[in-house]
């Protein structure tokens, strides 16, 4: 069997194992899903009137416009939130004896991590679909998006999920316990709070704006907004792709190097 078909075969076996875990113990994924949904409801119905001033065309509060503004950011935040679960489950998994068994078997070396990554990306996408459904239920509408733009949006979500997942896998691998993993992965859910997800960049203090503007979430959020709502994307598209690429490569290198090192 060639190396590639061996890799594909072992990785899909590992993926099946990870999906079995996720299906049998869905509570972690579902708990993490609550965060973006609660934030969506909170920001729309509780803070919405105050925060939406100036977002719609007129000067007053505009709830419908704010829902449209909020949903793309929360879809990406959902990915950040799901990958915390990835870090926790990777860290948990590494304490299991079965990982030592995998390391002493004649299988594709990377398949253990690839199984985690693919399973996590699928869970991220399923979670974003659920959050999008909640968004639609409370009034989110995309009137302008063409099928091609929808496809591009889905592709962006998948790439972003892939990038954050590889980083989360690395965080899980270096964490000695599930608690440590969940702490280490905290930036993945904190970063969206200091992006353009909830309020526009121009409302932030000047010294802070560059940080918010160039961190991974803002370009991805602006690109998603552009694809779904027709707002200008500008250089954010390339910036978002670059971030996805850089984080994927870094996360992959970091994770595989950590996994391939002698345990303990």
């Amino acid at each position, binding site marked *: *069997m060639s190396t590639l078909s061996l890799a594909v*075969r*072992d990785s899909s*076996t590992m993926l*099946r*194992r990870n999906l*079995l*875990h996720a299906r*049998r*113990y869905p509570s972690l994924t579902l708990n993490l899903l609550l965060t973006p949904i609660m934030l969506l409801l909170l920001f729309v119905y509780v803070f919405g009137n105050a925060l939406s001033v100036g977002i719609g065309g007129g000067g007053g509060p505009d709830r419908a416009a704010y829902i449209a503004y909020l949903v793309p950011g929360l879809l990406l935040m959902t990915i950040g939130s799901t990958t915390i679960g990835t870090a926790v489950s990777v860290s948990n998994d590494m304490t*299991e*004896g*079965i990982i*030592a*068994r*995998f*390391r*002493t*078997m*004649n*299988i594709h070396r990377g398949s253990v991590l690839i199984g985690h990554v693919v399973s996590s990306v699928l869970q991220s996408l399923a979670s974003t679909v659920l959050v999008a459904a909640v968004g639609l239920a409370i009034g989110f509408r995309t009137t302008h998006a063409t099928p091609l733009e929808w496809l591009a949006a889905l592709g962006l979500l998948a790439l972003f999920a892939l990038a954050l997942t590889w980083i989360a896998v690395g965080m899980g691998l270096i964490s000695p316990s599930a608690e440590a993993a969940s702490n280490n992965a905290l930036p993945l859910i904190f970063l969206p709070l200091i992006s353009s997800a909830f309020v526009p960049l121009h409302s932030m203090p000047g010294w802070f704006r560059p940080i918010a503007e160039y961190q991974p979430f803002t370009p991805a959020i602006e690109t998603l907004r552009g694809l779904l709502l027709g707002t200008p994307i500008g250089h954010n598209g390339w910036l978002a792709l670059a971030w996805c690429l850089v984080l994927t490569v870094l996360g992959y290198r970091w994770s595989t190097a950590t996994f391939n090192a*002698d*345990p303990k």
Partner: protein
Amino acid sequence: MSDLAIAAKGLRKSYGDKTVLDGIDLAVPEGTIFSLLGPNGAGKTTTVQILSTLITAGGGHARVAGHDLATEPQAVRAAIGVTGQFSAVDGLITGAENMRLMADLHHLGKQEGQRVTARLLERFDLVEAANRPASTYSGGMKRRLDIAMTLVGSPRVIFLDEPTTGLDPRSRHTMWQIIRELVTTGVTVFLTTQYLEEADELAHRIAVLNNGTIAAEGTPDDLKRLIPGGHVRLRFTDPGAYRAAAAALTAATGDETAQTLHVPHDGTQRDLHTLLTRLDAAGITADELTVHTPDLDDVFFALTDAPATSADAPANGAAPTKETVR
């Protein structure tokens, strides 16, 4: 060399300043059970981890199933099966799913996979529990599942790291039976244990590992000859009787504060009779008499005392004996 399943020369491993393995040599013929015997912290698990490609050696080289550990680790992995000290099963999924996972990773076809896993579940008495999550299994069941999973790929060399530690006596005997059966099919078993009895029961050859070096190696009989027999322990309450006994029994070593004497003893009825006759002749009656047969403690005293007192720091000699007590 060709009929050695495991051949190691000068294996070393250290973590920081701490040397765990200080140059060990091993030669395990194919189709035999080899036991690495030693106390906690002697380096048994580290040896298994190196030979099973889990970690890399800090020095020396080894061949397992004819393949070099350093240059052909995947070929070694294809020939071995490992059951670690901490059960290497996936607790979140069922026993049957664990078995199927192994069949898939060994690239068995669907039908062959089902045949092999069904046969192994049957053989290890796990059919009833097959559809329960492995985390709900008892210690003995987990070890059986662990070994069943190891056997899916029909390995030629099997590493068992303390397979009976923490098992109740019945499960331990079941495990011994399983290990004996393994070797009848021609596979080689490399077994670590901290129980002399277990090594004696199962192994063709035993190596005693102490402080990262092989202190002795040979057949169980070879090894037993190194053990200085047992002893008879006499305890007194009357200091006069203690002193009289110490004077009469010149071979004995005494502990004045505990009022006890240790008399070397080879375990025979004749030897015991001689001792009792001498006590009677001197008119001495001990308040308590117990016969001690050689155990692992004695092996370690015998094998580690000399270097501990001559060259090594006393702390080095004390550590393993202290650990064997628990």
